[in-house]
């Protein structure tokens, strides 16, 4: 693992964890990663690699799905947090934006946003609400139940809800999923803004590797429940395999989706 600049304090570190679902299905097999304070770290990987599982292990939500961290530990600001209830973890400052939006369908946008700030006791809620609305004006217009929002609108709401919580660390599970190209750009710029202006550390799971590696400072690549490659965003962007499988293009000119019919190279990380 390449050394991280010593000056950076590790906000989150995941050490060699193993996760088992339903007492039998082993999903993560010795996964380690670190998130330095104040940075954006991207976590990339194929479908089913265990990215969401990793995030859930950190936020404690694994428990609610019959999953369990059976080995290794997770520390947040030096404190071991595996096994702690998810709501307590939120209070410590880790907030997860779950995959698939998961907004509360039978409440209005406003109520959803207010719930984002559930753990907060300060008076800034009102201002933050305005801030969210200024990022996503559509949310202000939609006064009906959140369940009737379009897919993309729900995604905006989910991100807005995380902003309302003002956490120290946001775990984002595929925030750009289902967003239009315009919105994707917007979301990534918001992610960067949150990081820069509010000083929130972000662990980002993304399929849009190109955008993710642009926004992030560091990245990890997962396969089959393990980290197979990591480095700074720069390093990853220039890695041949990453280029080929995540960014497209690779060494040659970018291929058309139409023409890659039969020819297919399987990836082989070292």
């Amino acid at each position, binding site marked *: 693992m390449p050394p991280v600049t010593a000056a950076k304090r590790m906000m989150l570190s995941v050490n060699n964890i193993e996760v088992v679902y339903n007492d039998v299905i082993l999903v993560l097999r010795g996964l380690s990663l670190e998130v330095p304070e104040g940075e954006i770290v991207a976590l990339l990987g194929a479908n089913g690699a265990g990215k969401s599982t990793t995030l859930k292990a950190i936020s*404690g939500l694994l428990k609610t799905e019959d999953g369990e961290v059976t080995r290794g530990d997770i520390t947040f600001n030096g404190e071991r947090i595996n096994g702690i209830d998810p*709501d307590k973890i939120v*209070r410590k400052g880790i907030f997860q934006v779950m995959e698939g939006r998961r907004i*509360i369908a039978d409440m209005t946008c406003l109520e959803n946003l207010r719930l984002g700030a*559930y753990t907060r006791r300060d008076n800034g809620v009102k201002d933050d609400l305005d801030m969210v609305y200024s990022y996503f004006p559509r949310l202000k217009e939609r006064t009906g139940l959140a369940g*009737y929002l379009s897919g993309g609108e729900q995604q905006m709401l989910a991100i807005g809800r995380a902003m309302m919580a003002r956490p120290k660390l946001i775990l984002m599970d595929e925030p750009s999923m289902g967003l239009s190209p315009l919105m994707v750009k917007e979301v990534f710029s918001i992610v960067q803004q949150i990081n820069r202006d509010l000083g929130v550390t972000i662990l980002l799971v993304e399929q849009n590797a190109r955008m993710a590696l642009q926004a992030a400072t560091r990245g990890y690549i997962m396969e089959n429940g393990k980290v197979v490659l990591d480095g700074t965003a720069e390093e990853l962007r220039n890695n041949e395999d990453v280029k080929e499988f995540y960014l497209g293009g690779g060494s040659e000119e970018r291929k058309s989706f139409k023409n890659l019919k039969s020819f297919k190279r399987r990836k082989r990380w070292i």
Partner: protein
Amino acid sequence: MTLLFQLLVNGLIVGALYGVVAMSFVLIYKASRIVNFAQGEFLLIGAWTCWWLLTSWQLPFWIGFPITLVFMLAFGVILQIIVLRPMIGEPIISVIMVTIGLSIVFQAAMKWMFGVFAKPFPQIFASPTTNLFGLEVQTVYVMSLLISILIMAGFGWFFKYSRTGLAMRATAFDQQVAQSLGISVRHMFAMSWAISAMVSAVAGVTVGVVNGVSSALSFFGIKVFPAVILGGLDSIIGAVVGGLIVGVLENMAHYLDSQWLNWGNMYEIAPFYVLIAILMIKPYGLFGTKDIERV
């Protein structure tokens, strides 16, 4: 005509009582999607507790009753911690079955502790009956009517505006999401059970004062199902309106029955016919929120 009017008044009064029990149902449902089959036993426990304080300790009603409410609050919390907490995250239907188990346990426990005979409450109000619109009614009904209005207003505000109220609704919608927002599902559940137990105790004491306390009081639990559904499972106002409707319906059905039909038990069955009819028109009751059907 006066009979009809009197029945109407009586229907409203009894309906308000149904409304109280219905509210305590809805409360648990709103926070956890659990249908509590032990609600009737909550009512019973409340009634016995109050009875015991009033007879064995000779406390005056105005002290014994609040103590009962506090006790029920604690009881709800403890019950949640011991029995229902381990069930968090498990299939709702299993939790519902647990409440059925609870009702069996409490039913037997109450009989064990207080015996199988109906016991009368000591006299509480200087004048046990009050004249309301030309109908003599038990004073305690009037009391529960007032309390229920208060409770209803309180809940209405609570779920619409308070942070905790919102959190409870979120918990009901999706426990996992609620937890991801930092809501302690345990606290929400504990609170809803506690308040629900307390509210049922109001109804329990009322019925107990009127009819004497006996295990059979717990039947009220199932009796209010139509009321809850009529109003809409997740609506506090609906619960009260549903209660009133069922109360009035029973009495009107009885009127029809006694004057013309002579079926005998129309008052028991009619609410169910009306229930089905209303549901066919409004599948989520009068005030219930529709499920969101989107793909």
